């Protein structure tokens, strides 16, 4: 937690210092010590919207890696139209009683806590009756079923709530004010998903192309169409990385953060998916492996990461939703 205050288990670093730390860790080819929803989403949200007591209770545990979080946003009938969510929370003394179903709850089968959106008022405009609340996954009435995806993995779950009781003090922000908190958190999520477009840690595209496609007598990738696609991808990643840097420089200079996270989410995920498609083209038939002999581990992994990447433009708000947000909130186009 490089940028979190030291009181909550962070290192209290500036954005610049944290960037240097990230770059050095990436340069050494090491993973970040802590990733996940606690670090990238609920942590920053608590820093922005939590009370002192809420921060003191949850942040140090996230920083120490003691608890894992999952996200209860989407429902079977509330995907892109998230605000139409129906999971209800009814006040009963010092508790909310929660009933309903969440879907695409990443890692719910291994999570200790869930941050979720619930409907606390069904009689107002849909965005105005939503509350953001934290729930202990050990609570009676929580049931989790993993969903098997096209990649063969089950990173997502369905999570059911049957008369689950959560204390009132676990509401983040105002009761019926959850949409504001949710949007701020989605901003963190988009920034985190969008960051993938920069490439970096994964395999080098040109290197992979040289290995699989071969090189001509001048040492160039021996297929002009693949070479052109590799070049385009690398150039797009360069301009995208520079745009992330420019945005960060702007924040550093005191510019207010705006709806740009939609741009990063849209472009970063589309770019990452294009990269995955290209890596598939580069490996050719060797990218078809599912399991067993005849394929290298990296090739088997490629099949899975490509399939997984198809969700990039769906999760965290589809590409189409991001374009809607840019059109409305950045360009001011009418509804």
């Amino acid at each position, binding site marked *: 937690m490089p940028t979190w205050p030291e009181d909550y288990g962070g290192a209290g670093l500036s954005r610049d210092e944290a960037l240097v730390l990230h770059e050095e860790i990436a340069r050494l080819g090491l993973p970040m010590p802590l990733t996940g929803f606690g670090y990238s989403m609920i942590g920053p949200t608590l820093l922005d919207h939590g009370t002192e007591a809420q921060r003191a209770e949850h942040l140090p545990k996230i920083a120490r890696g003691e608890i894992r979080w999952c996200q209860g946003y989407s429902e079977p009938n509330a995907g892109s139209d998230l605000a139409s969510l129906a999971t209800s929370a009814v006040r009963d003394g010092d508790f909310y009683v929660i009933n309903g179903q969440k879907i695409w709850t990443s890692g719910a089968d291994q999570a200790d806590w869930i941050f979720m959106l619930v409907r606390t008022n069904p009689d107002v405009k849909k965005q105005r009756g939503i509350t953001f609340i934290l729930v202990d996954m050990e609570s009676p009435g929580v049931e989790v079923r993993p969903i098997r995806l096209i990649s063969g993995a089950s990173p997502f779950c369905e999570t059911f709530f049957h008369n689950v009781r959560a204390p009132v003090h676990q509401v983040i922000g105002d009761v019926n004010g959850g949409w504001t908190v949710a949007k701020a958190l989605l901003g963190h999520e988009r920034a985190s998903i969008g960051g993938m477009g920069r490439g970096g840690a994964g395999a080098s595209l040109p290197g992979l192309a040289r290995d699989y496609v071969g090189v001509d007598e001048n040492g160039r990738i021996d297929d002009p169409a693949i070479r052109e696609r590799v070049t385009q991808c690398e150039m797009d990643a360069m301009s995208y990385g520079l745009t992330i840097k420019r945005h960060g420089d702007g924040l550093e200079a005191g*510019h207010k953060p705006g709806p740009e996270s939609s741009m990063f989410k849209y472009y970063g995920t589309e770019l990452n998916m294009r990269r995955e498609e290209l890596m598939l083209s580069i490996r050719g038939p060797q990218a078809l492996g599912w399991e067993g002999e005849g394929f290298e581990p990296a090739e088997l992994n490629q099949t899975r990461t490509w399939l997984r990447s198809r969700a990039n433009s769906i999760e965290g708000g589809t590409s189409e939703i991001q374009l809607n947000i840019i059109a409305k909130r950045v360009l001011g186009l009418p509804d």
Partner: protein
Amino acid sequence: MASLVLTAPQEMLARTAAELVSKHGGVDRQRRLRDEGAELGYSPEVWAEMADLGWLGIPLSEEHGGLGMGMAETVLITEAMGRGLAPEPFVSAVVFAGGLLADAGSAEQRAAWLPPLIDGEKRLAPALLEAGSRYGLDRVETQARTNGDGWSLSGEKVQVVGGVGADGFLIAARTEDGDNGLTLFLVPAEANGLEVVAQGRVDSRNSAIVRLSDVHVPAGAVLGAVGGGLEPLGRAVDRATVAVCGEMLGLMTEAFERTIEYLKSRSQFGVLIGTFQALKHRAAKMFVEIELSRSAVMSAARAIDEGSDDAELQVSNAKARCSDALILVTNEALQMHGGIGMTDEHDIGLFMKRARALEFAFGDAAFHRQRFARLRGF
């Protein structure tokens, strides 16, 4: 790596440039100059005002009498010019020719030419293209033969930007067989055997054919080393390319903003057309492309200013990106304006025409992608 945020003085410069362009009529001025068939294709009074502001020496060091600012500042001027379609030959005369002279010229050449260039009394035009050269700087057939103490030049340069009314030309000629025999010459316009013929281009800017028939120049007309013209020429072209990218950025931003305004004001089927998702998504994608272009241009300008190792790479990244984004935006702008966009009366066509000239200036997107790939060893 330099910050990609404008400093306060840079913001001020950008504002001043925008004010200058709009004060003189903005896009209406370009239209008027075109309709009048103005021989110069630009306004001498605006050029003089740019000289008064010191802008004709903006990228030239203070020792040469310039302002000693970098490409980061230069692109702010060209961006404002791009927004208002200002036709003054700033990139060709100041960034390219002035920069090349400062880089490769002898002390005598600099002393003779730079002060009047910076004051706006004289103007140089780089004569780069030939009919068969496309984007290859070394695809030059103009010949220079030794002639007594000097040289004799013969050949034909085309689409010499700012060529009409120029006081001198920077000309690349072949001085011996082989790839490395490219030599630069500084040739005054009044030289015997040099003929300037105005050319009509789609963007109605100042453009000329320069014909050289045994033009005799003294040995002192050589710019830099005999046979060593390609390197300084390449550096000058990279700087000019980034300046052009600034103009492209201004042009695409203006065409885009005008289109967004149109989407907010034009009604069909009883609703504003900006409510249509088919148009919203395309508008949002254009916005993203413009943002990426801006980052690429700002970074390339700073890479040149810092003498960064990857400056050439960044220049090609910026030019390829801007070329693609500019064509996307101006084509979409016309489409979204519908039939009115096809009329000469409407301004959006002027943006589209200029966009094509900028796309092909110093190499299109495909050319710069190839260069990027070559530099990275793909």
